[in-house]
């Protein structure tokens, strides 16, 4: 019997080791797994590498995790925001490493990890600072940069509905990084608003098949506005 539903947030994040690379879903607050991030803070793993689109906003979610000092490195596309003061402070004082990746390369690198691709040539970033030192190649008259997959130990994502197999559907633009992150981590953990009986999700509309999901936990939380 397959039952990936775990009863508590504590059980959901159990066993995440020090030194883990953790993918964290969300674009703005949409799809950001706040409850799982809080659970990870409580769980206490350190020396983490966090891969997410941003590097935290205000003092909650990712920013709260960064504030614990347990994050060694952030890989993201857009760390600097009007309310990214936690990250900004750590970065300026040299307490955190940063790898900035164009958003589409970030997404494709995560997808490549899940899809078993060893590396790929992307046109994005060619001829810019972010491609410095990287292998390039001209193919069919266009210039490309070679990018590598981002494999992770853990993914923390948020979806709308799950069944006990871990099949997921999402809500609107909260889908964003969830499906690809689920595929790229050894341990993929989804917080969802509700669990439905097996068979209730239409097989034509499942976005993340359960094979990509290790644990599911129900977390009732309001998504705070991003604006």
């Amino acid at each position, binding site marked *: 019997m397959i039952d990936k539903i775990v009863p508590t947030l504590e059980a959901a994040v159990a066993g995440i080791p020090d030194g883990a690379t953790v993918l964290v879903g969300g*674009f*703005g*607050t*949409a*799809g950001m797994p706040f409850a799982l991030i809080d659970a990870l803070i409580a769980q206490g793993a350190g020396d983490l590498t966090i891969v997410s689109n941003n590097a935290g906003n205000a003092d909650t979610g990712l920013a709260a995790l960064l504030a614990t000092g347990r994050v060694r490195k952030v890989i993201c*596309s*857009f*760390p*600097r*925001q009007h309310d990214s003061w936690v990250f*900004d402070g750590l*970065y*300026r004082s040299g307490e955190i490493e*940063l790898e*900035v*990746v*164009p*958003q*589409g*390369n970030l*997404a*494709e690198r*995560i*997808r490549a990890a899940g899809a078993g691709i060893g590396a790929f040539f*992307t*046109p*994005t*970033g*060619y*001829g*810019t*600072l*972010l491609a410095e030192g990287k292998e390039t190649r001209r193919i069919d008259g266009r*210039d490309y940069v070679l990018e590598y997959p981002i494999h992770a130990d853990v993914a923390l994502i948020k979806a709308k509905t799950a069944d006990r197999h871990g099949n997921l559907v*999402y*809500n*609107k*633009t*909260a*889908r*964003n*990084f*969830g*499906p*690809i992150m689920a595929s790229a981590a050894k341990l993929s953990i989804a917080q969802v608003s509700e669990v439905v009986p097996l068979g209730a999700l239409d097989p034509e509309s499942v*976005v993340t098949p359960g094979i990509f999901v290790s644990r599911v936990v129900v977390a009732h939380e*309001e*998504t*705070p*506005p*991003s*604006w």
Partner: protein
Amino acid sequence: MNKLDRNAMAARVARDIPDGAYVNLGIGLPTLVADHLPEGREIVLHTENGLLGMGPRPAAGQEDPELINAGKQPVTTLPGAAFFHHADSFAMMRGGHLDICVLGAFEVSIAGDLANWHTGKPDAIPAVGGAMDLAIGAKRVFVLMEALTKDGRPKLVRECAYPLTGKACVSRVYTDLATFEITPDGVLARDLVEGLTLGDLEGMMGVELRAG
């Protein structure tokens, strides 16, 4: 000489977006283009965080925190909309499926190089978001920007001084003074505001221009 105001600039771009086009509007000034799309044209807006068929900002109180645009502002969906994940969304851009992308810029070079992501200041925290993907992510990339900086320096330049977002990616530059078409044979200027001659404009921009 009457410079175009922001709404007139946005309307000028909007006029050139044909019926049926799939379009991504960048953050900032380009977002304003959505308010000026001509009546009677059906234009499908893409937002890179996973939506085609984006509609306008909802009425106050109707906002959904899980339905936002790339600028993280609340939006709506129109009939015919579709949601997808980030890899699919950027595949759509990188694969050249969007007809037009409208972006802001610090500088555009006469070769169509774009600089719009980084001031290059040594103490700036680098943050690129989707800028480099947008720069190469459409059949045609339009830039919408003021022609001059606040202290009067031209933003259409021989070579970008700011770090590049993408090389040779801009098709056309819409400004408050004129529209510039970037071509392999040089820059064509058209739609000069009243009272501005091509000679004046060349002098202001410091690059060679031809009437287009």
